[in-house]
């Protein structure tokens, strides 16, 4: 009977942890905590569920900021930290400057969905950060957003 209690408690813990969002543990997670929702220099988008189904995505989050160099630097640093965990990535450069980065991170838990970070730095003051989750691959996402170079 002690074993049954252990199984029950473990199941409860597993259920609890699975409910937690997959972006937790990423450096960009705090950026989506809501502090930009009422920012007059930001556009925040959150879409979850059926509307993303045909793109094999379950979550779309984005923050676009304008005229905020400090926040651009903050986004860049967070993306740089998370990109080290990427198992697949692609960057777009203009000359020596990286103007866009696409990163695929492994699922937060075994059997979970892939995670993606897209970062576009339009200028030192303007940037867009997108976080996606879904059963898709980076190359498919890149085909959606940029031309694949031959």
């Amino acid at each position: 009977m002690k074993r049954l209690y252990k199984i029950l408690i473990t199941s409860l813990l597993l259920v609890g942890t699975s409910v937690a969002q997959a972006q937790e543990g990423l450096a960009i997670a705090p950026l989506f905590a809501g502090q930009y929702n009422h920012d007059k220099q930001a556009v925040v988008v959150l879409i979850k569920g059926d509307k993303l189904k045909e793109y094999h995505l379950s979550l779309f989050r984005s923050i676009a900021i304008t005229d905020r160099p400090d926040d651009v630097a903050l986004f860049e640093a967070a993306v740089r930290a998370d990109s080290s965990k990427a198992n697949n990535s692609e960057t777009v450069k203009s000359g020596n400057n990286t103007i866009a980065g696409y990163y695929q991170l492994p699922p937060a838990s075994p059997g979970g969905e892939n995670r993606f970070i897209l970062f576009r730095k339009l200028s030192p003051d303007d940037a867009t950060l997108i976080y996606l989750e879904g059963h898709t691959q980076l190359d498919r996402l890149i085909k959606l957003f940029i031309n694949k170079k031959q």
Partner: protein
Amino acid sequence: MTGKSSTHSTRTPHDWEQLIERYYAGETSLHEEEELRKFLFSGEADDRYDDTRAVLAYTQMGRRQTAPRVHATRHHALRVWAAAACIALMLGGGIVYYTTAPRDTCVAYVYGEKQTDPEAVISQMQQSVSQFASTDVAVESQLDAIFSPLESIP
């Protein structure tokens, strides 16, 4: 024997036989039974008490087997109820979560203003995505083709 007030020594063989008769008649108290048991298994009792010794040993063994079972049955029932309650809590919590938690979310905050109209939110998403498009017209067409089905969503 020091320390023990051996009541064995206060009873005569005739007393023991009377006690045995009362035992078989079901008239002895628990204390008397215990006293009788101690006497019979003390080594002082001779072979003529073998039958009675065997009966007491048998009943003693029966008590040991039945008494704990009553406690085990009660504890087992409590454990089963506790396990059932845990499972019911888990199921109930899961049902509440899946029925009350929003499964679809569609919201945008455009320069501080909250928008929940799906078309407007999708439009904002398209604008975010368009930041990543190259200037290549073909890519823009692809984006339009990909996201245009969303525009028909009510």
